[in-house]
């Protein structure tokens, strides 16, 4: 009430304000990486080094490709898909980069996979004062969270939401067409190696499920493993889906090698007794679309193959064209699936 009281009040306010100044001045942001750890990031993002291929694609989808300061060998192997990065500095292998080269570029952030490179990356980059953010985007379940983290880190939250909204829209379309057909046909999912199947915890497994199929190996003991051809015969899958090991499908103008992959499976000795082989239901999916940012496209192909009637209005190629043109700013080309255009045999 008197001037003493108001003076004390004023002093307390000023004192409180002054106490809070340091945090305002050096406000560091934190985001959570794929392991839930808090990673401190600098306020402004001027340049970024990306070791993970899928994350790079998402970066481009968020209009942040101009931030990329250095690239790894995965970009070098696929120059046609990354024209804006063709002169970017090279920092080594995605799994074991040259940390000195990275440090020379003085990026604000390095984006890497969850497990690669190993823990020495935190030490080396930390010593150079560079933040390392690990993200895993190959699984459907964690995808949205990881992309939002990226948006937050790079100041591109709106663009992140746009990508997620597109995916939600596409998955919703799939869910709708699958509602009409409650069957979940049994599928033998073969990975990159012959007789290797992908089980629980893999991107391919989720894609098959999302596309309305039931992966034979869903209850397997480990993520990846060799199986016996006899098991495939006894399980009697309705269709076989092979994930093609060949990368850089963007420049593959014909699907000939994918067709050969399918044919190789059909010609395996003893496999002719499988219903899937007899009815020609062997499908091949390119590795780019079986998981990661383009997972809805892979799931769309699966849905069309397994539910040709219910999902006849789904057009995976159109979705892919839309994704490449709108999010990747690249013209649509390449062959990513056999049979192409999601036709059923």
């Amino acid at each position, binding site marked *: 009430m008197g001037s003493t009281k108001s003076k004390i009040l004023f002093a307390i306010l000023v004192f409180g304000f002054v106490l809070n100044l340091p945090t305002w001045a050096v406000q560091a942001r934190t985001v959570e990486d794929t392991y839930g750890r808090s990673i401190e990031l600098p306020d402004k993002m001027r340049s970024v080094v990306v070791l993970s291929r899928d994350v790079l694609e998402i970066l481009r989808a968020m209009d942040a490709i101009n931030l990329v300061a250095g690239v790894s060998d995965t970009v070098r192997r696929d120059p046609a898909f990354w024209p804006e990065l063709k002169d970017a500095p090279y920092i080594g292998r995605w799994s074991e980069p040259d940390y000195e080269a990275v440090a020379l570029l003085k990026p604000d952030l390095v984006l890497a996979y969850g497990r690669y490179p190993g823990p020495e990356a935190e030490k080396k980059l930390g010593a150079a004062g560079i933040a390392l953010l690990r993200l895993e985007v190959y699984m459907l379940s964690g995808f949205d969270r990881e992309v939002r983290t990226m948006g937050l880190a790079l100041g591109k939250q709106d663009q992140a939401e746009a990508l997620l909204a597109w995916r939600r829209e596409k998955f919703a379309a799939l869910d709708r067409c699958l509602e009409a057909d409650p069957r979940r046909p049994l599928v033998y999912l073969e990975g*990159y190696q*012959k007789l290797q199947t992908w089980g629980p915890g893999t991107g391919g497994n989720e894609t098959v499920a999302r596309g309305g199929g039931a992966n034979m190996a869903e209850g397997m003991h480990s993520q990846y*493993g*060799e*199986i*016996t051809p006899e098991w495939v015969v006894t399980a009697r899958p309705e269709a076989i889906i092979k994930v093609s090991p060949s990368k850089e499908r963007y420049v593959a103008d014909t699907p000939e090698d994918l067709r*050969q992959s399918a044919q190789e499976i059909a010609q395996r*000795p003893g*496999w002719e*007794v499988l219903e899937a082989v007899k009815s020609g239901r062997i499908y091949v999916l390119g590795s780019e679309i079986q998981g990661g940012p383009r997972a809805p496209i892979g799931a769309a192909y699966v849905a069309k193959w397994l539910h040709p009637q219910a999902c006849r209005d789904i057009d995976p190629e159109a979705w892919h064209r839309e994704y490449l043109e709108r999010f990747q700013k690249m013209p649509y080309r390449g062959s990513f699936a056999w049979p192409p255009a999601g036709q059923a045999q």
Partner: protein
Amino acid sequence: MSTVASPEYRALAARLSAVAPEPGDVLRAQGRRAARQRMWLIFFLGLAMGGVALSLFWGPDGFDGPRVLASFHGDNAVASAMIWSMRLPRLAIGALAGMGLALSGCVAQAVLRNPLASPFTLGISSGGAFGAALAMILWPWSAPAIPAMAIIFSLLTSLTALGVTRLRNATTETLVLAGVAVMFLFSALTSYIQYTAPQMELQRIVFWTFGSLAKAGWGDIAVAAAMILIPAPWVVLRSWDLNLILCGDETAQSLGVSVSRLKVLGIVAMSVMSAGAICFCGVIGFIGLVAPHMARLAVGNDHRILLPASAALGVALVILADLAGRILYAPLVIPVGIMTSFVGVPFFFWLIIRDSRRRW
């Protein structure tokens, strides 16, 4: 009466203490021992056949006797495809590999006069792995390239080791060292390929080194059979020479063995057999070292019995290891190379403990 019971010997025997055996006792003791060794051989053969039978009747849904029998009658297309195109090739290549590696192991241990020698001592597995890795990088779409390159390089490694020793009239120790050097060379080259390979190829190369019985078709089996079943009789017929070479080069020579010829041909035979074993299956380790040792603990060092016994044990080990790998985490298959280590080691320990007096 035989000459052994003549007065001359009775006199000699009388000179010794009362507990000395009678002349006939010596032959009877030897005869009993030979009979025991034959029993072990029969046991091992039974083990091999039993293993094959058990593995033949085990399918993805467990014991499937009716399916196997139906496939032999030929009226069930699915059963026939499963058994004839999938299960029998697996058993056939596994049996051939087990036999080839075990026989090679015996030859390696005799020719190199070293109980730790195995078919891989001269670098055959490193050469084969390198050849396969090279094929996977250069011709990833070609199925026959892998076994072909594996054979070429595995033979190259052992012949290189052999060649090095011909330069200076070298001993077996030099041969072993040359083999180890060649092995390191090819291991380093393979590591380099693995380091520079893209991820897909790297995975493929690494899996090849674990061993798999699923990749061989009947055509491959025919080639492997030729590579293993042609040198095998030659090796068995050389049993007496192999027995002698264990006693030393000079002793063997003085008893009529052409030592350098035996070593060279023995190494060639061993290389061809083990190359045949691994080029279609990948590296199945441990068999070439363990099967001869286990057989030796039971039947001794007479190669006339040791060779067939080792071969039978090798077959049993590979087939049973593969069976265990199929059962443990079905439908997942644990690679046979990993299983042979798990199956071989405890068996080996049991034999040693059982008769710990008969150590090296």
